[in-house]
């Protein structure tokens, strides 16, 4: 396959125009760290954005950073960390889950995938932090979306569409993102031995409290058996962990941890872990450590299920029981990671029927290429919604040049 290493937005325009003329669909890559996610594509050339890697402007006082799409996420994170700032949505690093080289991944890939970590319940997702973008559409035209300020309602909010579009609408060349102060300290309340449903109730109570919880996860014993430190060490193999995170200035985080522990006393005694220990546990949850590609569940397909949070516990418990699989919960039950024993369709049919019933959706994030060819990777939508989505896609990319077939299985792929 041919690889085109673009040097600037003009190169991207030229490449897309040539692709249109030559009817050659393009696969868009930054670092290629998430190439294993999505429907296998019908493309025959790679558009490599890794040379577009400059930080255009970082203005800590304005709470914004403008970077080219191919910039390494790790470098950008350490840059903003040096000013005690962060991307509040906690972008996930998929390398542990997919078994790809650690620390890779570009800013464009972070936005294109739109995967947010535990703090999504408080701070929102990638879509809530993308303020502006320059991108090249499937018409081969550079366009601008949004701006460089947080508060902006000028024209349609096209940035929202770009986040999570898996490179199927436009090739982002530069983005402006909101950055937020990094909390001074964090405390995590650790409850032990709850079953999934009780844990879901405890997390619901925590989120319904005024204590400003910024992480709520539950790991059944099964998830602890398959993971090393820090989660494996935090719990006993046959005793589940329920974690609730409080962040802020030290006095406040400590005070709220105490208040929340008292409010949840009916769920049993709770320990509190702090700062580095707490951060390590949440990083492991964020990056789906229990189902690491280097661990015992390496060969199991992994689903990412998003659902109404209070339904999560009962749903996940039944799913694990019936499929003989394993699950763990983030977002207070609103995000379920499920590793299911290998089967012909990765349990897609049964799982999706069940997910539909609670108003959620499920994407098959880790699976062999063969399986991803056979199954709808992203949740099939109701007909009218799917048709509208397709019209939106074609309003950006009428010839289906960009990442053809990645989001939807069909005649195009």
């Amino acid at each position, binding site marked *: 396959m*041919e690889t*085109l*290493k673009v040097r600037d937005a003009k*190169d991207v325009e030229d490449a897309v*125009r040539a692709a*249109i*003329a*030559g009817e050659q669909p393009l696969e868009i890559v930054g670092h290629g760290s998430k190439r294993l996610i999505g429907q296998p594509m019908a493309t025959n050339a790679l558009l490599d954005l890794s040379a577009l890697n400059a930080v255009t402007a970082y*203005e800590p*006082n*304005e*709470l914004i950073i403008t970077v080219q799409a191919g910039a390494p996420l790790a470098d950008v994170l350490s840059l903003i960390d040096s000013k005690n700032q962060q991307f509040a949505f906690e972008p996930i690093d998929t390398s542990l889950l997919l078994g790809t080289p650690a620390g890779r991944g570009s800013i464009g890939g972070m936005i294109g995938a739109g995967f947010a970590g535990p703090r999504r*319940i408080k701070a*929102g*997702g990638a*879509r809530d932090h993308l303020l502006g973008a320059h991108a090249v559409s499937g018409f081969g035209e550079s*366009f*601008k979306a949004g*701006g460089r*300020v*947080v*508060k*902006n*309602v*000028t*024209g*349609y*909010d*096209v*940035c*929202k*569409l770009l*986040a999570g*579009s898996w490179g199927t609408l436009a090739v982002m060349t530069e983005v402006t993102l909101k950055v937020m102060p990094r909390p*001074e300290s964090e405390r995590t309340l650790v409850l032990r031995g709850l079953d999934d449903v009780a844990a879901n109730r405890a997390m619901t109570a925590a*989120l*319904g*409290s*005024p*204590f*400003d919880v910024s992480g709520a996860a539950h790991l059944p014993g099964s998830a602890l058996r398959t993971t090393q430190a820090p989660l494996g060490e935090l719990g006993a193999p046959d005793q589940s962990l329920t974690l609730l995170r409080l962040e802020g*200035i030290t*006095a406040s985080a400590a005070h709220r941890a105490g*208040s929340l522990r008292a409010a949840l006393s009916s769920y049993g005694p709770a320990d509190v872990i702090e700062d580095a220990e707490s951060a390590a546990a949440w990083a492991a949850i964020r990056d789906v450590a229990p189902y690491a590609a280097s661990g015992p569940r390496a060969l199991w397909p992994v689903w990412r299920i*998003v659902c*109404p*949070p209070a339904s999560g516990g009962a749903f996940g418990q039944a799913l694990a029981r019936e499929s003989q699989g394993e699950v763990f919960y983030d977002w207070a039950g609103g*995000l379920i990671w499920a590793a299911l024993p290998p089967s012909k369709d990765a349990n897609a049919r049964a799982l999706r029927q069940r997910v539909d019933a609670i*108003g*959620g959706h499920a*994407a098959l994030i880790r699976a062999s290429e063969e399986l991803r060819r056979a199954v709808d990777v992203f949740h099939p*939508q109701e007909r*009218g*919604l*799917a048709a*509208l*989505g397709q019209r*939106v896609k074609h*309003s*950006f990319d009428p010839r289906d040049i960009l990442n053809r077939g990645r989001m939807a299985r069909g005649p195009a792929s």
Partner: protein
Amino acid sequence: MTILMPEPDQAVLARRGEIVAALRKIVPGEGVIDSAAEMVPYESDGLMAYRQPPMVVVLPDTTAQVAKVLRYCHDNGIKVVPRGSGTSLSGGALPLADGVLLGLGKFKRIREIDFDNRAVVVEPGVTNLAISQAVDHAGFYYAPDPSSQIACSIGGNIAENSGGVHCLKYGMTTNNVLGCEIVLITGEIIRVGGKSAETSGYDLMGIITGSEGLLGVITEVTVRILQKPETARALMVGFADVEAAGKCVADVISAGIIPGGMEMMDKPAIHAAEAFVHANYPLDVEALLIIELDGPSVEVDELIQRVEAIARGCGSTTCQISTSEKERLLFWSGRKAAFPAVGRISPDYLCMDGTIPRAQLPLVLRRMKEMSAKYGLGVANVFHAGDGNLHPLILYDANKPGEMDAAEAFGADILRLCVEVGGVLTGEHGVGIEKRDLMPEMFSDIDLNQQQRLKCAFDANGLLNPGKVFPTLHNCAELGRMHVHGGKLAFPDIPRF
């Protein structure tokens, strides 16, 4: 009146009687209004300088009726303007002479309160404040709080992506909605999202929010609710010059503090507000900041001290800290009444709404002073300082010949300045008709064409709210045409591997 609307379609106007009769079949009784006298309340929205009677007003009360009305209008090539409470400050709900005004005022039910999922399902005509009131007993609230929250509808909030004083910390409408039911112009009913944190597929909720009634008609909304903070306290800090106040805002943010609200008023706004509500505002300062911290008392008390020290470091001349809820609300009373307060000192005013990078504030205020002299019109500034959202109020008298035109020209100059310093035309009021013709200041033809293509995906014939947001209307076939450049020679002149 310098803003032109699309020419009315005479063929549609000629069929008015037939159209009214057809609509009556869909929405019986008093739901169709066609008498000139009864249509008067619908002639304008919050941008009251512009008025236009619609062809007919329709007030459906079920989604099925909305779908039928839209399908009828689609099939008959009739334009439709959706309207919630009519509080838009940018003319988003200004009727069209040949259009149906579709009012959602009868959609007033709160359908479901789901505390466990922290979600409320409401009809679009429910007011912003009514949502918070409905969940208040359990300690919850709906975070976005536009100043019109007593009157403005949640459907209108979605259309405009409304903000408010607390969006620095809690986000705008788009950050606080989970799903909706939307009826397309074809009459097709689509559900987007629900009670989950994310939707599947493309983020259509994200594009519908802030689309100013151009993409579809919302008939149900699911919003996210939050627990109220334990406590809130405010500081009221005066400065001898605007630069010092601007520096204080930047320093608070640099210190890693995100206040619940951080508002600035300039001298004319302070004086107008004080004369109106007697909030004990200092009158000898050039700029006043109201900074609110919320959270647990232990946090708020500590942050209040930190902010006070920062303010002192920036040369504050006065500083009061609220010691009771009553006092906190008193601090806010002047700010919240700033618009009507300015209304008392001037026969008319024009409220602008640009956003700028915070660091540009002193420059922008200085330039605004020069413009004020040039146009011979006063200006008072209230400012969501935390997120750089300016609300200059331009004072004029519509009865004096030429003053309204001058005020509009002054306003346009301010917005151009906002774009010039790296900001945007509108932070929370929307483009509507008011800023429509300024869109090319911020966007190229290519940018605007791409946005209009998106519109085509929802409304291929351009029947929903035409004349708003986009200065030039193109037809969808023309926008969708692909101009293929070059021949079959693939990928010229790019390094390859």
